[in-house]
C-alpha cells in the first residue's frame, strides 16, 4: 500500500531516484512479513539457523500442522465470523447515522460527531474492567453475540466519520430527484445514495476489519473458550508443548495475515479513493 501513496507522477525517461527510494522503504516495511512467511515455509530444522538459510525447498507441512493443531481452525473461523459480521453490521448502522448527520444536520452535528469519536479516545486498558463487569452482569461473556456487539460498537465511530464525508460528497440533488418521482426515504438511501458510496464503504470496511481482526485484549477478556479468535489463539499456543516453536508461530502468523491481505488486495482500487476521503473522486 505504502508505495501506492508515494508513487511519483509517472514521467517518461529513466527510473528516478525517488522511485528507487520508495521501493526501498516499502521493502523495509514488508521485511517482517516476508520473514514470517519465509519462516513458515522453511523446513523446521532451518528456522533458527544463523546466518539464516536463504535457499531452501519450501514446505507446507508447518502450516498444515499448525492448522490441525488444537483449536487453531476453530479460532480462525470464529475470528472470521465475528469480525466480518461485526464490521458489516457496524457499517450498516453507521450508514444510517452518517446519512442522518449529512442530510438532516441536527443541531450541533459537528459536536455530536466529535462526541462519537471521543469514545475511541479512551485507552482500551481503562475500559476492559468495566466491560468485563458489564458483560458479567448481562451474561454476554464468551458469546458470539457479546463479541459481535462489542466490535460493532467499536467500529461505528470511524465508519460514521468516513461515510459522512462520502455522503456529503453526493449531491442532495440525487435525493430530491428521487423524492420528486415518488421515492421513499429508504429507497433514496439504499438505492440511490448507497451505491454511490462504494469507495467509502470499502474504506470503512477495510479500516475497521484491520482493527477488529487484530483486537486482542477484549477478545481475551470478554471471550472465552467458545469464542476466542485467532489473536488469542496465537498467544495461547505460542508455548505449545512447553517450548517456543517458531515454525508454528510463523505458520499461524501467515494464516493470520492472509484474510486481511486478500481483502485489501481485492479492494485496492477503491481503497486509495476511500482513504483519501473521496478527494480524488469524480462526480457525475
Amino acid at each position, binding site marked *: 500500500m505504502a508505495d501506492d501513496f508515494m508513487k511519483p507522477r509517472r514521467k517518461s525517461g529513466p527510473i528516478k531516484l525517488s522511485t528507487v527510494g520508495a521501493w526501498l522503504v516499502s521493502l523495509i516495511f514488508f521485511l517482517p512479513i516476508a520473514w514470517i512467511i519465509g519462516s513458515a515455509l522453511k523446513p523446521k530444522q532451518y528456522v533458527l539457523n544463523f546466518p539464516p538459510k536463504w535457499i531452501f525447498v519450501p514446505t507446507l507441512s508447518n502450516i498444515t500442522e499448525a492448522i490441525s493443531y488444537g483449536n487453531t481452525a476453530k479460532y480462525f473461523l470464529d475470528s472470521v465470523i465475528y469480525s466480518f459480521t461485526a464490521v458489516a453490521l457496524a457499517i450498516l448502522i453507521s450508514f444510517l447515522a452518517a446519512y442522518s448527520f449529512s442530510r438532516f444536520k441536527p443541531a450541533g452535528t459537528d459536536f455530536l460527531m466529535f462526541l462519537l469519536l471521543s469514545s475511541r479516545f479512551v485507552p482500551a486498558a481503562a475500559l476492559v474492567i468495566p466491560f468485563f463487569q458489564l458483560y458479567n452482569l448481562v451474561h454476554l461473556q464468551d458469546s458470539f453475540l457479546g463479541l459481535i456487539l462489542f466490535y460493532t460498537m467499536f467500529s461505528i465511530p470511524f465508519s460514521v466519520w468516513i461515510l459522512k464525508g462520502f455522503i456529503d460528497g453526493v449531491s442532495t*440533488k*440525487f435525493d430530491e430527484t428521487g423524492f420528486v418521482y*415518488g421515492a421513499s426515504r429508504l429507497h433514496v438511501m439504499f438505492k440511490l445514495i448507497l451505491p454511490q458510496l462504494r469507495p467509502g464503504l470499502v474504506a470503512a470496511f477495510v479500516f475497521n476489519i484491520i482493527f477488529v481482526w487484530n483486537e486482542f485484549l477484549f477478545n481475551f477478556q470478554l471471550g472465552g473458550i467458545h469464542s476466542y479468535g485467532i489473536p488469542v489463539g496465537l498467544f495461547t499456543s505460542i508455548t505449545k508443548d512447553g517450548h517456543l516453536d517458531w515454525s508454528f508461530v510463523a505458520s499461524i502468523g501467515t494464516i493470520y495475515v492472509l484474510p486481511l491481505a486478500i481483502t485489501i488486495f481485492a479492494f485496492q482500487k477503491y481503497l486509495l479513493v476511500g482513504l483519501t476521503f473521496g478527494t480524488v473522486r469524480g462526480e457525475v
Partner: protein
Amino acid sequence: MSELAFKVSGLSKSYGSKVVLDDLSFSVNINDFSVIWGKPGNGKSVLVRSIMGLERIDAGEVIVRGEDVTNKNAGSRNIGYIPQSFALFPHYSVRENIEYPLNLIKASDADKEKAVNRVAELLRIEDLLHKKPTELSGGQKQRIAIARGLVITTDVYLLDDPLVGLDFKLRERLIDDLRRTQEELKVAFIYVTSDPLEALSLAKTVLVLSKGKIVQQGSLTDVYDNPQTVQSMSALGFPEPNFVPGKISNGTFTSDIFSAQVNAPDGISDAIAGIRPEGIVIGENAKAITLEATVALVENLGSENVIYLKVKDRMLVTVISRTDEENLKIVEEAKIKISILPHAIQLFRADSEVKIGEGKHHE
C-alpha cells in the same frame, strides 16, 4: 384561452428575516410554454423547490389541475421535473435512468419500453440508452435528464434552468427540441431561467420574477413591447437594454447624456430611462435625439454586430446588421453620430422600478 393547469397563490417563504418569496401568485394554462424569468437571487430556485414540494412554504397554496397539493409530498404532485443539475444516477445505465420514474410507479415492462422509446426518439438519444452517464458529454447528460423528466405522462412539466452551462450551439438545439416537444405533447411547460435570450426564444407566455414576486405576466410580445418594470425589460432579448438614470420635470427627462420629451408625471428626481438596443440607431435623424459617440467595442455575432458606444462616461449598446456595407465601416475608436428613437424610451421610477411613462414622438 385554455384550461388551467397550474396555479400558485399567495406563496410566501422567508429564511429568518430574509423574504425570498413575497405573496407570489400566478397561473399557467395547459398547452402553453411559460417562461419564468428572474435574475439570480430573486427567488427562482426557492420557487421551483416550493412548487415541487422540496421546500416547506410559510403561506400560500399550490394547485395542480384544480387539486390543492400544498400539503402533499413531492412524489405525489405528479409534475414532470427536469432539474438544473442533471443528477443522473451514475450506477444506472442511461435506459435505467430514464426508466427510473416508471419503476417507482411500478409500470409494466411493456409500458416502460414504449415510454422510453418515445422520449428517446423525441430527444434523439436512441444510441445512448445502453451507455453509462459517465460516458456522456454535458449536452447528452442534459438530454437524458430531460428525457427522464418527460417519461412520465402528465400535463405539467417544470424545467429548472436545464440549459445552464451548456455551450451555445447545444443550447440552440435543445431549445428547439424543447419547443417541439411542448408543441407535440400540448402540455404545460413551466421553464425557469435567468437567460434573456432563452426566455425570448422559448416563451409563449413570460412571467417576470423580481424580488420574490411575479411583477409581470403576459404574452411574449406584450412583455417585450410594454415592460411594466425594469426587470421585465431586462427579461427578454439580447444584448441587455440600456438603462440611463435621470430626472423628470416639465415633461422632460434629463440625464447626463441626453434629454427627451416624455409622457410621464413631473417631479420625479430619480427616474430610469430604458432603451432597447434597437432603439438606438446609427446616424443623424431629425425625429430622434442625436448624440456624438465613440465606438468602444465591436462584437461580431455573424449576421449582426453588437456595438458598444461611449457617450461621455456612459456606455450604450446597439445592434447593427452586418449585411449593410456602410455598417462595416463602423470600427473601434471611430467617432460617430447616433440617434435615440424617442418612442423607444421607457421610463421607470428608480426606487420601485415600476413603469411611469414613455418617450414622446417628435413631431
